[in-house]
């Protein structure tokens, strides 16, 4: 497991450098392009796009071995690639230099008609934090400390064009038909575009935090619609420690279980009652406050779960699916894990693999309590994932398996499992 983990670029910095490399190359390609163009105005953009495509391909191939593998295994098909893209696009933003203060002022003028100095009592000239597609400034108003998130200009605009470059490479790289790839990329694209719409994020944040308000021990910031717009989002500043920092203060096992339980309940309530979920369980989005509450921010990525998908998907987590007389095959057909085009041999092969994975990944749901601190469980997940991704049947399969709605649900659970593992929490799961 150790080896596996070191090969996975988990830290922001590591991933950022990876994409920085691509970024630098792509930037170089543009320079090369304009350099050549000065002497030869006939030069077409095709050469440029090809150069870019090749470099993005290189970087994605590197990811193929690590981040992708986990994602791959989790979504139980080989089409999790879009998750890798998503990281890629999110990460490529980390390499963007911070916005200059005049641009911050310009953004305020454009969207709110006033400067930060007009609106707030104090406003930090420099960003205090980088968000995935923007940056955060700290401000004060009427005795309250506020977090002001400002989006980089042009991000929303460039997503579709970036994905256009990547599409053909993806289809070559993973040998998947364009139509099948399309539904996954489409899912990711729509989520990415949603993430750039701060007005939508504001609406969702207020809605979900309102509906989750009764959950105990959880703290949400208050949002300020009158100070927000499409590119600016204002909320309370939450003081607290990130999970890693909090763990360094040596909390007791009871405290860890308590935080873990709150995290689990928060997700459980969203998925099963609200049918829409904060689909970005990134460690940076959680904070533990002085009074041991769990602070939760960032509702930029919310997945709404369609009813029929919900029914099918959570059947997988029930106790009885593993009984020998349960008709798993039909359920797999419904979920798209198996297809009519499969040969009998393929059907048998995938039935076995998916059954093994469901047993493993659904295990926390099949007992009353589950100890996420159990590293042997995670080790097993990595081993199975590793073995499956090396199978030539999987690598050469041309069919996409799984359901596009599963993409973000799997990502959510994967993130949640990881957070709980980091907390070493034992949680009441059912």
């Amino acid at each position, binding site marked *: 497991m150790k080896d596996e983990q070191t090969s996975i670029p988990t830290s922001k910095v590591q991933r950022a450098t990876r994409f920085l490399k691509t970024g630098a190359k792509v930037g170089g390609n543009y320079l090369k392009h304009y350099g050549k163009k000065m002497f030869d105005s006939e030069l077409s953009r095709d050469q440029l796009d090809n150069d870019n495509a090749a470099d993005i391909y290189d970087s994605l191939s590197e990811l193929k071995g690590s981040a992708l593998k986990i994602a791959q295994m989790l979504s139980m098909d080989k089409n999790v690639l879009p998750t890798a893209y998503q990281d890629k696009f999110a990460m490529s933003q980390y390499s963007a*230099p911070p*916005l*200059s*203060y*005049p*641009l911050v*002022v*310009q*953004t305020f*003028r*454009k969207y709110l008609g006033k*400067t930060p*100095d007009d609106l707030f009592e104090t406003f930090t000239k420099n960003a205090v934090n980088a968000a995935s597609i923007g940056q955060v400034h700290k401000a004060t108003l009427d005795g309250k400390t506020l977090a002001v998130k400002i989006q*980089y*200009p*042009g991000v*929303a*605009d460039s997503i579709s064009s970036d994905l256009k470059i990547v599409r053909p490479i993806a289809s070559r790289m993973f040998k998947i038909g364009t139509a099948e790839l399309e539904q996954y990329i489409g899912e990711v694209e729509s989520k990415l575009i949603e993430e750039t719409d701060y007005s939508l994020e504001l609406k969702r944040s207020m809605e979900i935090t309102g509906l989750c308000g009764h959950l105990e021990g959880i703290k949400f910031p208050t949002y300020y619609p009158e100070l927000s717009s499409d590119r600016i989002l204002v909320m309370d500043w939450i003081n607290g420690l990130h999970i890693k920092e909090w763990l360094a203060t040596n909390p007791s096992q009871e405290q860890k279980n308590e935080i873990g339980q709150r995290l689990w309940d928060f997700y459980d309530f969203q998925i099963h009652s609200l049918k829409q979920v904060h689909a970005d369980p990134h460690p940076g989005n959680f904070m533990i406050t002085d009074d041991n509450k769990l602070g939760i921010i960032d509702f930029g990525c919310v997945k709404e779960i369609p009813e029929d998908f919900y029914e099918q998907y959570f059947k997988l987590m029930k106790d009885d699916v593993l009984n020998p007389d349960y008709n798993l095959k039909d359920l797999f057909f419904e979920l798209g894990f198996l297809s009519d085009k499969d040969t009998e041999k393929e059907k048998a092969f995938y039935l076995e693999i998916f059954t093994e994975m469901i047993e493993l990944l659904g295990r926390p749901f099949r007992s009353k309590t589950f100890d996420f601190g159990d590293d042997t469980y995670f080790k097993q997940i990595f081993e199975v994932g590793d073995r499956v991704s090396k199978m030539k049947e999987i690598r050469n399969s041309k069919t996409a398996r799984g359901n596009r709605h599963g993409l973000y649900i799997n990502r959510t659970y994967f993130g949640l499992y990881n957070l709980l593992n980091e907390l070493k929490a034992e949680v009441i799961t059912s």
Partner: protein
Amino acid sequence: MEKAVKKKATKASLSAVAIMKAYKKHLLTEGSQPKSVFVFMEHLNEEEEEFYKYFSSFEAIDAELWKSFAERTIKAIKSDKAYNGYGAREKMLAFLFTLVEVLKKDRSYVKLTFKRPDKPELVPAWLRDFKKEFDAFSMEVIEEGIGSEEIVKRPILSERYYDGLWLQILFIISFWLKDTSKGFERTDAAIEKSANLSFELMGRGPLDLMLDFGKFLYQNR
């Protein structure tokens, strides 16, 4: 009869502003300059010579209009409280962002008149006054940048910094004219990135180290 017309005309005696306005309106509705000053003034029920009191040609009106863009921009940024606290880079950024906002009000006019010169060292007559204003501003900023060591004084090169900033502003205006993004967001990004690059280049950086190393090699060979 003739007297009556003349009387009417003197009554409505045209100011420079009114001529500029009428000219701009003609340009925007017709898509081109009037055939001649005579035709133009006849439309305004005016004698041709009235025109020459203020302007020598249509190009002179264009020059005046462009100059006013620069003047309005500088006035707007200097009236912002935050401006005095800015460093050189931020002052230039503020100028560029504000200029685009100013030009936005007259985008159609800018689109009709702005043609990027084929040879950058040639400045067309209608852009000359605008350049004068901008050069004065950028020299002020450069000087301040040198004072605060944000910008490095280099032999020969530093006297040409403002030429670089001029090319940059031409690039930004033509980028903005081609920009199709919502709210011209891409132009904002273009301004930010290009100004950051030019100030990196004018600041102490690899360039100086390269020159220094080159000089060392040359002297020690």
